């Protein structure tokens, strides 16, 4: 029975090859739109993470801080969930960094007798702990330690970042949901068309005594194949666009282009796209058959 269904499905895919090709292309187009969206979201996530990794608490040490105090401070941060990394900047290193960041101020620094900059420990916050509350808590804790003069972080910037991330996430999910739904509906209606075209065949099979399962199995296989082929085509097209944009100088808006070319979809998402095609195809087939065999 399985072999028959498979055989029938393959034969029918070939028999109606033109219509099936058109159906696959239509499916591919709607999945491509979804894929582009997912690619954008994926790279945006990367950007957010990169920016987010700059969320730091700067702990400024007193001039008279001892080695031991400094060591104790850094030790206390080791292995903590909220800390991604720590970096100690000696006054000299701080001066060099300052000069690097503000080249025009170099002369000013040169005129000073002493280095006014303090030593500091830059604490990069780990993902999930980049909210103002976490920063505030850590800063307060650091300030209580001996040898610490002051602990600061850029609250307005962090708050703004948080807002942007939250907004992007909401927009992403809702937009993604809409696009995904559109893709599924498109696939379902395309599949329905292919099955309606075979209505006569279904009717005759019923009249000679074929069971519902016997009739349905090849159709479901066919529609699943169409879905997966559509998915494959969309992935191929997506990759081609990705590569093309990466190598072209083009007039595409730079931000958009970066968001499409930074990296390609992770394997899991690619597979998800294929599975979506397959599932939507199978579901579309199932629903269409039910309407016909009524």
């Amino acid at each position, binding site marked *: 029975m399985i072999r*028959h269904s498979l055989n029938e499905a393959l034969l029918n895919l070939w*028999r109606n090859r033109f219509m099936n090709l058109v159906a696959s292309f239509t499916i591919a187009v709607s999945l491509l739109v979804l894929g582009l969206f997912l690619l954008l979201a994926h790279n945006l996530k990367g950007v957010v993470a990169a920016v987010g990794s700059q969320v730091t608490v700067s702990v400024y040490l007193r001039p008279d801080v001892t080695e031991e105090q400094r060591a104790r401070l850094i030790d206390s941060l080791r292995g903590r969930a909220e800390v991604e990394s720590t970096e100690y900047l000696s006054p000299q290193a701080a001066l060099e960094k300052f000069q690097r960041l503000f080249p025009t101020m170099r002369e000013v620094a040169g005129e000073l007798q002493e280095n006014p900059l303090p030593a500091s420990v830059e604490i990069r916050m780990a993902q999930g702990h980049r909210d103002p509350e976490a920063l505030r808590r850590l800063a307060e804790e650091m300030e209580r330690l001996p040898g610490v003069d002051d602990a600061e972080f850029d609250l307005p910037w962090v708050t703004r970042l948080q807002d942007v991330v939250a907004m992007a996430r909401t927009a992403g999910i809702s937009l993604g949901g809409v696009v995904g739904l559109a893709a599924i509906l498109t696939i379902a209606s395309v599949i329905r068309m292919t099955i309606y075209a075979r209505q*006569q*065949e279904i*009717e*005759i*099979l*019923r*009249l*000679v*005594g*074929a*069971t*519902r399962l*016997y009739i349905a199995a090849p159709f479901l296989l066919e529609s699943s194949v169409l879905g997966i082929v559509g998915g494959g085509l969309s992935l191929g097209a997506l990759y081609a666009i990705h590569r093309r944009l990466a190598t072209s100088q083009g007039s595409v808006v730079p931000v958009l282009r970066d968001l499409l070319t930074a990296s390609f979809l992770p394997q899991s998402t690619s597979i998800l796209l294929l599975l979506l095609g397959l599932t939507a195809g199978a579901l579309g087939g199932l629903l269409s058959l039910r309407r016909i065999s009524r």
Partner: protein
Amino acid sequence: MVELYHVNKDYGRGNHALVDVNLAIEKGEFVFLTGASGAGKTTLLRLLFREEIATSGKILVDGMNVSTLSASRVPRLRRRLGIVFQDFKLLPRRTVFENVGMVMEVSGVPRRLQRAKTYAVLEMLGLNHKVRSYPLELSGGEQQRVAIARALVNEPALLLADEPTGNLDPKLSWDIMTLFKTINIRGTTVLVATHDKDLITRMGKKVITLDCGRLITH
């Protein structure tokens, strides 16, 4: 084999296709169903293979209560029947061979046996040279014969034929009837709906007549 008790079929708005039909066809009988166009012949046949459901009354086919049959058991009923449709109902994208083999395919008959039976029945109907042709490449008469072949190939318990000789010349029509007679002798109950009076007379079999949905007693 076939029993109808007070069967009515209404299509609403005063359209009474069948009115209080009572009839019984014994196993092994050969019966002609006749009447003017629109008298209800096709409707009656459709009730027998559950393409329509009677508005009221009881229908028994080969022991099965057709009216109360669940949808999932209908295929089983149909596999025991051989049906020749007035409009052939052949699959245009399948060859003659595949069209005829469909019933057996659906019943799970082994491939090799399917082949043998298909060739045998096509030979009986003089179509073995058209085995690989597609229905659209055949004449009306040839298509009709393919439809008949499909109905016969699985040696059904009951053969229902709706105007099986409509497109055939007298000689071929007679050959088909002879074929039906042979099948009948072998045990298949045969019910043929037709308004070919000559054929009916020549065959000399039992006749049931419908007039405006009612059975006429001779």
